[in-house]
Structures are given as C-alpha cells and as structure tokens.
C-alpha cells in the first residue's frame, strides 16, 4: 500500500537534473500528492516553461512512484503558482553552498532592471554585497551572471520568478 508520506519521501530523493544538489521537493515544484489505492496523482508546477529539464523531472518522479509500487499520474499545472519563493530554506542553503546565489524574494510586480543593477545581491562565496550584474542570462533560463568585487569571482544568481 503506497502512502502519500512515502511518495513525498521518495520525491525528496529525486534530484534536479541540472542542479543535482537540490531535490524536486527542495525546489518546491511538487504542489500536491493524492493517493487513491495504487494510483498516485502528483501536481507538478514547472519552473521556467522552456526549461529542458521539465520532461526529465516528470519522468524521474514517475519512476520514483513506480519504484514504490504505485501507478504514477503526473499532472503539469502551467500557472503562476510556482515562484522561487517556494524553494525551501534547506534548498536555498544547498544552492548557496554549491555556489549558486539563492533568488531574492518575489514582489507583487515583476522585477525591474534597476533592482538587478543594485547591490542587493550577496556573493555565495564570500558573502560580500559588492556585486554587479554581468548578464541577465546565464547557462540555463533560471540563472543570471554576477561578478563579486569582494573576492573577484563571477557567480550564478538565481532569477526571481
């Protein structure tokens, strides 16, 4: 008999395909788990709509559920319910320790350029806020590139979504 608790634990072991230090539960992309007999219904909210990791995430969640003996039904909910605020405190700390600056909190309106150009972003290596925007875009849609004048290193900053 599969329980919702067992499913949550299994999903907490599923790594993000691009940043394996965090799990899908750390990322907050699992919105709901419903168990009905063998059938396990998971509501999954994409991070960025064009993220190439989405299919891999969906497949890995299905595999984890099938590993418990459940029948996986992963529903993708493409609305605004996921934001970077849903990344758990543990997830943020894991990101920072791996050299990715966690996202700034989301505000009511989408962020503006002046905010990204401000020094309100902390270097994940040395903790300095003497950092500047290098490129709004980075190696994946979810990250920007900043430069830290404190320790003279570039670093990846999670975008606020």
């Amino acid at each position, binding site marked *: 008999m599969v329980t919702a608790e067992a499913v949550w634990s299994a999903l907490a072991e599923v790594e993000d395909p691009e940043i394996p230090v965090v799990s899908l539960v750390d990322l907050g992309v699992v919105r709901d788990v419903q168990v009905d007999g063998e059938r396990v219904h998971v509501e999954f909210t994409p991070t960025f709509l*064009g993220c190439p990791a989405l299919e891999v995430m969906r497949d890995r969640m299905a595999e984890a559920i099938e590993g418990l003996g459940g029948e996986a039904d992963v529903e993708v909910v493409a*609305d605004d319910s996921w934001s970077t605020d849903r990344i758990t405190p543990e997830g943020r700390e894991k990101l920072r320790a791996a050299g990715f600056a966690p996202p700034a909190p989301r505000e009511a309106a989408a962020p503006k350029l002046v905010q990204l150009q401000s020094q309100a972003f902390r270097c994940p290596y040395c903790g300095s806020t003497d950092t500047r925007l*290098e490129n*709004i*875009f980075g190696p994946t849609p979810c990250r920007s590139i900043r430069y830290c004048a404190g320790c003279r290193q570039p670093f990846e900053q999670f975008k606020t979504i």
Partner: protein
Amino acid sequence: MSGLERLLLAIADDELVLGWRDSEWTGIAPVLEEDVAFSSIAQNEIGHARAIYELLSADSDALAFDRSPEEYRSSQLVELRFVPDWARTIARRVLYEAADELRLRRLMASEDPAVAGLAAKIDREEAYHRMHAELWHDRLREEPRYVSAVGQLFPYLLAMAEPDDHHALIALFEPKTVPSNTVLLAHERGSHAEGWAELWNEMTEVRRSVPGAAW
C-alpha cells in the same frame, strides 16, 4: 474557434517563430553574453508557445508543426530574417516586447483562470526579456542604424499588436509618421513575410520526415 482562442493561437505562433528566429544567433552573436542571452530568450519563447499550444489542443506538437504555412497566425514582424543585422534584431526585440507586455496584461485579467494563470506565469519570465530590451534600447538609442530599424519595423509592430494597443505603442515610440491603414493591411496577420516559406520548411522538416515525432 473563439476570439480568445484565435488570439492565443496568434500569440503562440508569434512566440514559436520569434524563438526560432532568435535562436539563429546561437553561436554567432556579436559577443558571448548575447550568444547566451539569445539562446535563453529563444528557449523561453518556444516554451511559452508550447504551453499555449497545450492549452489549445491535446496534441500540441500537431498544432505547432502539422499546419500548412498559410494556416499559421504569426505576424510578419517575427517572421522576418535579420541575421546578420544586429540593429534590426534588437529593434524587433524592443518593439515586440512592448506589444507583448500589453497583450499579456489583458490576458492576465481574463475570466478564464487557466488563461490568466498561464499569462501571469509567462509575464514573470518575459520581465527578463524586457530588461534585456531596455538595456539595448538605452545603449543604441542614438545609433542611426538602430533608429532607422525602429522606424522601418514600426508598421510591422502595429500590424502585430491588437488595435486596442496602437495608441499606447505610438505614444511609447513616437514614430515620425504613423502608418496608414493601407500599410497596416499589407502587413496583417494571415499574410506572411518574405522568408516565411523557408522558415516553415525548416521548422517542420522533422515532423514531415518522421510523422508523429514528439517535440
């Protein structure tokens, strides 16, 4: 097809085609940062197209790739091929994002929760495209080639935008001459730009070679 569905299909087609055009800079942009930026922007736009196609159809790949060229509702603004002209490429990004923001705002207020929710999600991602456009607009605003590209593409922008947004776009870009209805008619959706047939051919090649191939 309802008016809302026609609008959603037009937006999805715009995003798909513009994503395709922007991806043509991958590997050859003037600086490495823009290579990265255009690749990310293209990926986002195509992701938005897919999410809207999924809202409109149970078979989004078929909707994206199995239509004949004349059935696409994309605007001529996004169909034009600009590589290797950076001035027009940036002018299109700036103009497109301005009109896209206005139509997304209206969709975010839609009574259909699936449409409003998806539009809000897309808007959060587009905010970063708008910042990219703003940076370049500020950098090139006095550059004659850029100024002339904005003027040249403005009629295409109005033809792409919803009529309700024309006033706001004219106020924003203050074109030297406001395009006449005859000019707009020549650029309207449903008629396609030069180069469209070739792009359609390239975009749909895999689906036509391997029917049913998944995106």
